């Protein structure tokens, strides 16, 4: 039977007390952090909560490891010039069982959290309570583009080196900035006209690959008014670092209606030259003069 005796018992007790105190302080501190991508959308809030959960679970483990190192450096350091081996240590079954058991519990707990979140997202989609899922399959040609579902359909069109947006529910009007109505579930269809990009609306918690010939579907429900930034998160050429737009806006439904009507009016002349709204487009022309 594993028993601590003498000085070992003192050290273990001291370590346990310090660990508990520091862990409590660390967890309280960790809960004060405002985790990115913050809570400007339902999905962003989910991600922030997951980050908080991960951090709270990691804090006691981090403190335990660091505390053991520091404590050992202070109390078990070599005190003289003479080099002396420590006492030999053989396998310790209770410690090993505790180690593996605790690790397994933590990992399984996180797995259950992840699976439950994914399952609830799928369930939400299935019953039409859209806006909870982070992402869906990006199979080529699997789009529901142009569909009049409960979600606002917005196509994100990446190209070297700018994002434009097409609103399927509004005649496929294309815009230079992304405006979204408050509290309305949005189905983003992310694609590219040339090479691989990545659409990253950081404050909304959306990051989706933009691949040519692929309709990558993501969902987001903005729940706070204000601005957000869009940028490319995939190295895509000389102006990759500039492929950003700080003028994304979450606005009220009435403001959105006025804005989209203005866009349709302003761009009526070029609208007729745009191709029909499609899940994706292939690069055309392929090169100069073709």
């Amino acid at each position, binding site marked *: 039977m594993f028993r601590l005796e003498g000085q070992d018992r003192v050290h273990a007790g001291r370590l346990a007390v310090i660990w508990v105190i520091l862990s409590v302080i660390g967890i309280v501190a960790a809960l004060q952090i405002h985790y990115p991508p913050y809570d400007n959308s339902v999905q962003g809030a989910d991600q922030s909560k997951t980050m908080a959960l991960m951090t709270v679970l990691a804090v006691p483990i981090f403190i335990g490891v660091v505390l053991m190192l520091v404590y050992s450096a202070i109390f078990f350091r070599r005190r003289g010039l003479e080099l002396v081996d420590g006492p030999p240590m053989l396998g310790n079954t209770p410690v090993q069982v505790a180690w593996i058991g605790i690790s397994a519990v933590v990992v399984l707990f996180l797995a259950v959290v992840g699976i439950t979140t994914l399952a609830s997202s799928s369930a939400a989609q299935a019953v039409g309570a859209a806006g909870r899922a982070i992402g869906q399959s990006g199979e080529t040609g699997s789009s529901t583009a142009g569909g009049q579902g409960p979600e606002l359909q917005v196509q994100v069109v990446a190209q070297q080196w700018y994002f434009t947006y097409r609103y399927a529910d509004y005649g496929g009007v294309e815009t*230079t900035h992304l405006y979204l109505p408050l509290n309305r579930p949005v189905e983003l269809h992310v694609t590219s006209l*040339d090479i691989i990009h990545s659409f990253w609306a950081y404050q909304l918690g959306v990051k989706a690959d933009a691949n040519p010939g692929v309709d990558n579907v993501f969902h987001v429900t903005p729940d706070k008014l204000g601005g957000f930034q869009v940028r490319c998160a995939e190295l895509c050429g000389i102006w990759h670092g500039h492929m950003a737009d700080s003028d994304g806006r979450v606005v009220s439904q009435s403001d959105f209606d006025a804005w989209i009507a203005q866009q349709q009016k302003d761009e009526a002349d070029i609208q007729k030259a745009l191709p029909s709204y499609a899940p994706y487009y292939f*690069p055309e022309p392929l090169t100069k003069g073709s």
Partner: protein
Amino acid sequence: MLGRLAFVAGSVVAVIVATVALVGLFMLQRPGTLEGPSTSIHLETVAAVGAAIEWPRPNDPHLDWVSYLPTTILRVPANSTINVQIDQEDGATGLRNPFWGKVFGTDGGNMHVKYFDDKGNPQEGDMTSIDPTLAAHTFAVPDLGVFVPLLGISDNAPAGSANIITFSFKTKGPGVYRWQCFVPCAAGTVFGNGGPMQTLGYMAGELIVS
């Protein structure tokens, strides 16, 4: 032993020389700056640097590259109106995204174009958009919201002629604003967006607002 030392020393020297050459001859090389004492910019677009009419660069290492000339590094004053004239000598390629056939962000939301029609007759007028398939290039400063499509020269236009596109736009505060072309006009590169499209001094540029 001495031979090995000499080999190592030589290798070190070679690496240093190569690094200095890379940094000095390539990474630090930048095209000249067009510093306008006024707020006017005059540019030329050509299908090949070697075919330039107004600003020839006979010693350019890429004579067959499409390019804006004489440079793509432009220095302009902040919070000012910039008058731009582009002498567009290249033929049409067509826009990959037809949306960029529309003029955005210029004063009045339009541009003035002197061009040659299908029959080679000179024409002139204000335009708010062009047929996207007839675009040769665009002058786009996305962070200023400026997007101007440039009409390709007609096949029947007189030899050595150009479409003259003029427009004005306003700068914001100081900063470095990239500008680019949205037409896949870099012949022979991946999706037409390599080579000159990714190289300062050709189809990639900076608008230095100070």
